[in-house]
């Protein structure tokens, strides 16, 4: 019999390695044990080969002359390439799997967006080049703004804010300017307990004191408490709708009337607009300002994958105070930037940024809007809500939903189902990592105990949702069956196990520290 060729099936002795199986290299298959880049430093190694200067320039550098080593590691180009590719292989991303982080809207980032954003006419331009040479880019900014105004039923948009919290700041600065114009000093801002942490932070940064409004038993703003707190010193109320319990604020019209009657403004945190886009126009609800996270609702990459963009739409009442720049179409049909207060009859409060906003995100968002169309955007909201309700309904038996359904785009569970199991929300989330999933948002919102907030988004298929649900069901049943070891030490299968978060917070090491030199050999 021929026995010299390559074996084509496992040998008779093949068996699963034992639990303490360790490789010689420290790598685990394609999962490499990668040292820090500084630990790969070698004296004199470099990825570039620069010619020696032809003359002695050392006396020409003045104060810029280097006084000592700059501490950068020396590596070759292939080393650098492998280093970052290996790090990326340890990472989790929306391109790798379902990313159920509640209130973050981790939806798929369509490839078409990326293709459009790389067009040289958008990618290779500079904010200071002549406006006549970037007419297409200005028109695109204007068009994105027009879509946002149409989707929200608002007359004006400020495109420049760079992220959600920056948009909140923009909104409250407009509120501040409007109050100044009325000659009024109002010092307090109301924010529900379930608000994103950035809401009270924004209000405080704008010099307001924050007054929290408790949630009622239905997980919504307690209207009685709200009305009790209203008065002549209330500048604004900041509400997220749907709120961070994944619930629509059903009293929102009444809320708007009440705050307006008290002379204040209504700020809406648009972080959860994905549940409403194409279905509900915030302007119709009486909202005065709202930021829109393009990186959530309009699918531009975020969470380490790209910058945010948080344009803010304004009602008639706040529109005159919107910050510059604005993009306008002049009578000749050209697009131009309004950059100076003298160029407008309005009273802008100033600027939020040096330039016009996140151009790369505008292009991606516009590609998303055009490829979906109005009907497609409406379906986005419908499918996002359907996905979340499917998850909530499927898990109702095994986990404890905080509020009875239906929910909007995200569903909230608390840790009652883990009671007396010895497993905490944190342990449960860590066990999900071993199962190959990014955990959901945990311990937020604070209004329920040990919160687990799941936002599946509309871009997951039914199959993907079913697999995810099956994993959560199995974990929940295993926890209740008393198999707490699976949880309390999790994750077990990652390059690093459970980290000591307490020690990291108490004694943070924020920079690489050169190891002490080895003692000289005797």
């Amino acid at each position, binding site marked *: 019999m021929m026995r010299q060729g390559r074996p084509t099936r496992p040998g008779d002795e093949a068996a699963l390695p034992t639990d303490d199986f360790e490789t010689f290299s420290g790598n685990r298959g394609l999962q490499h044990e990668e040292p820090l880049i500084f630990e790969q430093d070698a004296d004199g190694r470099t990825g570039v080969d620069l010619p020696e200067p032809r003359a002695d320039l050392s006396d020409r550098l003045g104060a810029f002359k280097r006084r000592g080593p700059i501490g950068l590691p020396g590596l070759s180009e292939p080393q650098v390439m492998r280093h970052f590719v290996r790090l990326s292989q340890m990472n989790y991303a929306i391109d790798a799997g379902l990313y159920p982080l509640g209130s973050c809207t981790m939806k798929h980032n369509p490839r078409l967006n990326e293709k459009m954003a790389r067009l040289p006419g958008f990618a290779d331009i500079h904010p200071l080049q002549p406006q006549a040479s970037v007419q297409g880019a200005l028109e695109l900014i204007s068009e994105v703004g027009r879509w946002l105004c149409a989707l929200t039923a608002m007359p004006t948009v400020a495109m420049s804010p760079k992220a959600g919290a920056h948009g909140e700041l923009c909104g409250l600065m407009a509120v501040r300017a409007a109050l100044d114009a009325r000659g009024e000093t109002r010092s307090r801002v109301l924010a529900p307990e379930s608000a994103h942490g950035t809401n009270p932070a924004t209000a405080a940064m704008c010099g307001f004191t924050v007054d929290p409004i408790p949630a009622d038993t239905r997980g919504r703003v307690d209207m009685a408490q709200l009305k009790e707190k209203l008065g002549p010193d209330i500048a604004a109320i900041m509400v997220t709708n749907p709120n961070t319990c994944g619930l629509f604020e059903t009293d929102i019209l009444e809320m708007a009337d009440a705050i307006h009657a008290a002379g204040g403004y209504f700020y809406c945190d648009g972080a959860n607009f994905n549940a409403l886009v194409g279905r509900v126009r915030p302007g119709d609800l009486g909202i005065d300002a709202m930021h829109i996270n393009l990186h959530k609702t309009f699918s531009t990459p975020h969470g380490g994958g790209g910058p945010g963009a948080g344009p803010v739409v304004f009602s008639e009442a706040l529109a005159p105070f919107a910050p510059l720049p604005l993009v306008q179409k002049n009578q000749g049909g050209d697009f131009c930037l309004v950059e100076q207060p003298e160029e407008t009859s309005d009273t802008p409060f100033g600027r939020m940024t040096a330039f016009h906003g996140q151009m790369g995100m505008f292009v991606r968002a516009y590609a998303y809007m055009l490829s979906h169309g109005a009907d497609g955007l409406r379906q986005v909201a419908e499918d996002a809500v359907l996905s979340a309700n499917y998850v909530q309904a499927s898990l109702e038996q095994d986990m404890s939903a905080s509020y009875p359904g239906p929910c909007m785009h995200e569903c909230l569970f608390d840790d009652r189902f883990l009671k007396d199991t010895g497993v905490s929300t944190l342990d449960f989330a860590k066990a999900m990592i071993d199962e190959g999933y990014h955990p959901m948002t945990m*311990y937020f919102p*604070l209004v329920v105990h040990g919160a687990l907030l799941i936002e599946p988004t509309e871009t997951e298929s039914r199959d993907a949702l079913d697999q995810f649900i099956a994993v959560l069901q199995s974990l929940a049943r295993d926890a209740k069956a008393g198999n707490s070891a699976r949880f309390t030490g999790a994750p077990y299968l990652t390059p690093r196990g459970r980290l000591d*978060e*307490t020690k990291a*917070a*108490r004694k943070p090491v924020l920079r690489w520290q050169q190891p002490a030199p080895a003692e000289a050999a005797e």
Partner: protein
Amino acid sequence: MSDIRFTEEHEWIRLDGDVGTVGITDYAQEQLGDIVFVELPEQGKTVKQGDEIAVVESVKAASEIYAPVTGEVTDTNGALEEAPETVNAEAEDGGWFFRMRVTDPGELSTLMDSDAYKSYIAELD
């Protein structure tokens, strides 16, 4: 240990003459989890009952500490800055936050005694 009083926000105050020692309760530290940072008030600061006076930060959340009664801060437990874990280990003893001169001892009667606090937290669970 008779003169220890508790707030609904889970602070305790123990009175010795007109000086009260203030900290957070054992229940509070357990809810917060591992405490990683404590921001203490400045000495000499005067506060009204219910004013925010300190901040405690755990791996889970940052929470405000409210003055249980009106008074002036006379002393702070500086050791907590280096060793916030003391709050977890001895919340109602070595993990005290600050001392204050109590201007209106009558306010203490608005707070709960040990038994009342025990039944208060029993209801929260």
